[in-house]
C-alpha cells in the first residue's frame, strides 16, 4: 500500500542547531516526493520537490530510493522555521494520480 510516514509529531530544537525531519515512503514505482510547509494559520505551500534538487530557505532533501526516504535537513535552524512540515508523495495509484501526505511534523525552534 502507498504510504508516507513521518515518525516525529514534534521536533524541538534551539536556534542555530541542525534540523532533520524524517520521511519514509512506500510506493511501487517512481514517485514524486515533496515537502510542504504550513506556517501558523496559513495555507500549505510547497517548500521543495525532489526533482529540482534545490535548496529553499536553507532546507535540502535528498531522495534515497534504497532506504525509501526523503528526509528534510537544515544545518542551522532559525526561529522563523517554526511551522508544520508535511512530506507528500505523488504517483499513479489505481490508474490516476493521487497526492498523499504524511501525518506531519511540527518544528519548534526555540530562541
Amino acid at each position: 500500500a502507498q504510504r508516507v510516514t513521518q515518525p516525529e509529531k514534534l521536533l524541538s530544537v534551539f536556534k542555530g542547531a541542525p534540523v532533520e525531519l524524517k520521511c519514509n515512503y512506500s510506493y511501487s514505482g517512481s514517485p514524486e516526493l515533496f515537502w510542504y510547509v504550513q506556517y501558523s494559520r496559513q495555507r500549505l505551500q510547497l517548500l521543495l520537490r525532489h526533482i529540482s534538487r534545490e535548496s529553499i530557505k536553507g532546507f535540502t532533501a535528498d531522495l534515497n530510493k534504497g532506504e525509501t526516504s526523503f528526509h528534510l535537513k537544515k544545518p542551522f535552524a532559525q526561529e522563523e522555521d517554526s511551522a508544520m512540515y508535511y512530506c507528500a508523495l505523488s504517483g499513479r495509484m489505481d490508474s490516476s494520480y493521487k497526492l498523499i501526505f504524511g501525518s506531519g511534523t511540527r518544528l519548534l525552534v526555540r530562541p
Partner: protein
Amino acid sequence: NAGVTQTPKFRILKIGQSMTLQCAQDMNHNYMYWYRQDPGMGLKLIYYSVGAGITDKGEVPNGYNVSRSTTEDFPLRLELAAPSQTSVYFCASSIPGTGNTEAFFGQGTRLTVV
C-alpha cells in the same frame, strides 16, 4: 492570480445539518483534491477529481459527496453533519505527471459540528 479559493473560512453546523464547501481554481488544473486536517493526523484525502465530470474516493470519503461540473469548481457536500466531521478542510489543485506538479492549496475551511 487568485489561485485556489475556498469559502467559507469558518462555519458552525448543528448535527444533522448539511452544507457545501466551495472550492474554485483559476489555473486550469485538471486535478483537484479535498483533504481534511485533524490534529496530529495530518491530511487525509477525502475525494479527488481528475477532470470535469470525473471524481473518485480518497481515504476517508464516508459522509461526503463531490461533483465536478467544470474544470474550475469542485464543491464538497456534507449531507448529515456529525461531530466526527469537525475538522479543517483544504482544497487543492495540480497537474500531476507533467514535471511541474506543485499542488496549490486554498486557505482552508474550519468546520465545527455541535
